[in-house]
């Protein structure tokens, strides 16, 4: 990954960390998009879980 290091442009969107799901708009437009698959999936998103190798731990 090679992000620009010295440029300090303003983020184009407000940081998403500030968004509150509780204050979301009334409708959930995405759910009505044609072709949307009604797959209800919840999965941990943690790169470490996937890549940790047992040896890493043993070595130190």
């Amino acid at each position, binding site marked *: *990954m*090679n*992000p*620009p*290091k*010295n*440029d*300090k*442009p303003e*983020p*184009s*969107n407000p*940081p*998403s*960390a500030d*968004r*509150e*799901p*509780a*204050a*979301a*708009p*009334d*409708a*959930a437009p*995405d*759910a*009505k998009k044609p072709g*949307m*698959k*009604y*797959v*209800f*999936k*919840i*999965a*941990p*998103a*943690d*790169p*470490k879980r*996937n*890549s*940790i*190798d*047992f*040896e*890493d*731990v*043993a*070595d*130190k």
Partner: protein
Amino acid sequence: MKVALVFPPQGHFTQPYLSLPSLAAFLRGHGFEVHQLDESIGSYDHFLSRERLERSLERVAPEIALAALDGREELDFSAMERYQLLSELALIGRDVTLNIDEAKRVLRSRDEFYDYERYLWAGRTIEQGLRLFSAEYAPSRLTAHGFVTRYSVERSSEIIAALSDERENPYLEYFREFTLPRLQAIDPDLIGISVTFPSQAIPALTLCRLIKRWKPSVHITLGGGLLAYVADKLSKRPEIWSLIDSFVMLEGEGPLLRLAEGIRDGNLDLSTIGNLIYRGASGEVVKTPRGEPLDIKLLPTPDFDGLPLDKYLTPELVLPLAATRGCYWGKCVFCTLYTVIGPGYRGRTIAQTVEDMQKLSAKHKTKHFYLAIEDLPPNMAKRLPEAILDAGLDVSWWADARLEHDTFDQEVCDMLAKSGCKRLAFGYESASRRVLARMCKGIDPDASMELVRRVRKAGISVTLYAMIGFPTETREEAEMTLAAILENRDLIQEVSARVFYLDESSEIYRRRQEFDIVEVYPDPQSDLQVYYDFKPGSGMTRREARDVYLEFTKKLRSHFPVFQNTNMLYHELKSHYFLYLAEHGSWEALRDKVLSREVSGTRRAAVGPRPLAVRALRTRELAFDRARIDQRLSSIDSFTLRPRYQSDLVDDEDRARFDRELPREPREGSTLLYDARTAELHCISPAAAALLLRCDGTRTPEQVIEIVPQPVRANARDCLMELALHGWISEGGWIAEEQRR
């Protein structure tokens, strides 16, 4: 005359290492002024600070970089890797930055560290902080366990190139800002740098380069475990001699003292000091004869004074202590450990060890010790406990040990436990008698399990080391090992498995024909290579061994509580598991009071009549399916056959091939979700996200799910339930009602 001793990054951040305190005590005993600098913990502490991470966030600007990727039609392998990282940082970068100092405080606080939920939050936040920091220097990666860069530590030319890479070597800036000013304030005449792990190689030499630019006259000597393997090779590289003045091989006390005396007295003659490599007047590399191994009974207690003991990320210090050097067995053909600090096996007396514990415990107000030895010798297993108890010492400790069937009878095990032994780690390696015999392990697998049973009965936590792919080992034999471990899983708490690597300083390498190693493939460009790829003439191929190993680790994950779920005690923060054991008294108590509670979930809110997504959630919609990207990347990861600590980065050639050949990831929306209370990240599908968005406190559950067509409402209801089980929806009632139905 001043001496500075430096432990360079990167070592683990949970406890000090023993090399500096041993050398410092010895030199101080001879009247020298010694300063100890642990720049590993120093740099972790700095990198993981709000001020520093704010800078990382600013420099990485994940929002912008992610937006660019989100605009693409598909992602190739490299883009997927960036996507994985940037999507996380765009969502949580600010939270992590704001919380990082608090996370360190929690890990250092007695009350909060043992509050498991607080602990998990802190541990995750630290890992996320490391990912944010690493992103600034990508592809370099700093984790709790390692530091890797695109530069191979097996190639001296690459190491040298890394030393001046401002963009990818984070330690240049750190050393300039912190270490160098400290050294300048001390103004030492001799600097000893201890290099134990491959991850320290680049940082150590980076520091040498900066020091030499500041003060060319200072004598820099490099010592430590890693050099036993690579110093000879490294010394052939002329550039190295502009960075350092000498290498100390094997144990450092003697040579370092002679260096210090010579510098002090103005009559330094390197040729008279044993165990040294240096460059002579006409540019030739000189290796002095091996010195006599030290009688370690004559050594003082390690001296930790001057180390930043409040910075390690534990609430109580776990101090390392070496009661022996070398291995009393010293026969296993794959092992090189016993040669690193050798030659020869030596021990301190039991009384000295107890006295060391006593002194250090009183001085540093801690009761926790890690016996940093290859294995607990039988006489010590039998006599140390009684001596600890007689001295009235209240300590807890752990160590590695050999499966000595006759030594560890029930009485000995019980006494060990009584004296505070909380954990023993044994080299079990294999369940096959034939393989064990070929390894020269000198143990019987059945008797070993009986021994393990006795250790467990005494209440001590058991760790087993296992090895897959020893030359000539068949798949059936490897599977026997897996089966034996799984069968006895109630007796075993941790398993540390590894694939066999052919180490050039091992006995098996020297006698490789006997082990049917038909060909060895050294990489001609890797002048510092110590592990070789090879072709076995019988038994499993290397690829097969790797596959069995992966299968093995998968099973471990599903069968051993220590490896399960979000448990970080073992995975990330090694000595934390030991501290938790000590705090709870036994494995059973830890499992029942902490681990299984976490697994079943304690903080689970239910859905109310009008469910409301909790305020602690942060979400971000993504154009690609992050869950699938995680999955795809992790499966690619597993194909590497080399020891990971050498580099867990994909090399350029592979990367180009993956980018070319792997199917591209198409656009497929997902939502990344961060729970600020637990610091957990999840990826949820658009449909699940839509439901969560509708939980705004105004709708009933029925109204929430009515957005989806009738045929999938039952699934939607289940999903709502799952969201609630994760604690993401507040207000009680609905779940209970649902479960009653």
